[in-house]
């Protein structure tokens, strides 16, 4: 339990450090975004045959990372009130009193502008516009409109995190072909089971803060069922790149194994009482295990794609 006590005295004793501002950018999300963006960038070059200057490519990926951080700062600025009510988020820079809200807003807006400008300069207008749209989608549409209004918040809002491979593809080729949107679709469908597994553990936090997450509104049993439905949709969807030629043999094997693993976790979760009032430590571990495996799933899929196209191990089973 948090022993957080915010008083004027503690504020004076805890001046903000650079680390606090870095935490505002949600570095763990940035890591995932950079990885999927990088995979999209490398796959785009492999599939289209268009090569991008490596320095400009690195700056484009950096722009995606900074844009993601900007959206994170805007999210923390707007959600400071509910973050303070939840144990999981009460130690974040704003609710802990280290960073004033208006500074988070300023940081978010400045980094948004800088990232879009940098993307435009390093690649093209389409990639910059897509980056701007993704920042607005997360920072405004999801955070300000969806999150506190509907239990489908994470389903619709999941698109925000799905943009990086499309942005990266656009940065390389100046277009967004179906393969790019296929990677978007994989992350989009992956997001609900990923977050709902976590929300089965943290649903009391969300309830306290008044956030209508699925377990809060429709209960844990419905959430466990929905996790399985989305996982059953995700597993075959993860294999579609093999059919289009985007993914090769290695990707296909990884997607098959990882998809089966994710479904196995989802089935175990469905049969458990995770998220219910009588859930114990084993159920909590199972929900967190599913959450952890979901992250591994995405890393495996995009990692396989990255390795195939970066090392010449791309052996498509169908012609592209």
């Amino acid at each position, binding site marked *: 339990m948090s022993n957080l006590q915010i008083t004027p005295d503690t504020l*004076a004793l805890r*001046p903000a450090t650079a680390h606090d501002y870095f935490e505002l950018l949600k570095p763990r999300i940035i890591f995932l975004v950079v990885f999927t963006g990088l995979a999209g960038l490398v796959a785009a070059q492999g599939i289209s045959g268009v090569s991008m200057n490596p*320095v400009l490519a690195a*700056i484009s990926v950096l722009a995606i990372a900074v844009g993601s951080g900007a959206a994170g700062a805007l999210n923390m600025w707007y959600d400071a009130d509910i973050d303070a009510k939840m144990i999981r988020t009460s130690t974040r820079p704003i609710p802990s009193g280290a960073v004033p809200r208006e500074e988070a807003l300023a940081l978010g807006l400045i980094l948004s502008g800088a990232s879009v400008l*940098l993307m435009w300069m390093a690649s093209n207008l389409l990639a910059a516009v897509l980056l701007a749209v993704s920042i607005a989608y997360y920072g405004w549409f999801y955070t300000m409109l969806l999150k506190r209004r509907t239990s489908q918040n994470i389903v619709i809002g999941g698109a925000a995190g799905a943009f990086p491979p499309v942005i990266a593809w656009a940065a390389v080729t100046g277009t967004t072909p179906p393969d790019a949107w296929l990677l978007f679709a994989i992350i989009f469908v992956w997001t609900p089971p990923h977050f709902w597994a976590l929300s089965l553990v943290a649903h009391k936090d969300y309830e306290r803060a008044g956030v209508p997450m699925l377990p809060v509104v429709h209960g844990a049993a419905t959430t466990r069922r929905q996790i399985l439905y989305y996982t059953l949709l995700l597993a075959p969807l993860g294999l579609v790149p093999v059919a289009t030629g985007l993914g090769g043999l290695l990707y296909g094997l990884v997607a098959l194994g990882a998809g089966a693993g994710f479904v196995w976790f989802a089935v175990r979760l469905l049969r458990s009482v995770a998220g219910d009032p009588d859930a114990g430590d084993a159920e909590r571990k199972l929900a967190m295990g599913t959450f952890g495996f979901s992250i591994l799933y995405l890393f495996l899929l995009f990692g396989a794609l990255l390795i195939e196209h970066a090392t010449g191990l791309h052996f498509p089973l169908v012609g592209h």
Partner: protein
Amino acid sequence: MTEVPSPEILRLAAQKRRNLWLALALVVFVVLVGVTTTLRIQDADFSGENGFYFSGKMPDMTESAAESPE
């Protein structure tokens, strides 16, 4: 015995550190813009009408110059 610094001194020290990080971030941004601009110019095609300077033929102005009262 070690003297405990006052909250004001701690605040000023933290502010100084933040200012240094801010300055560093600005320098990095300027360097990135500079590098990007340089690479884009290097990769650009400035041949023909895409050139920086006018290199085509000037229109013949003799007729219009003759009609001019000056």
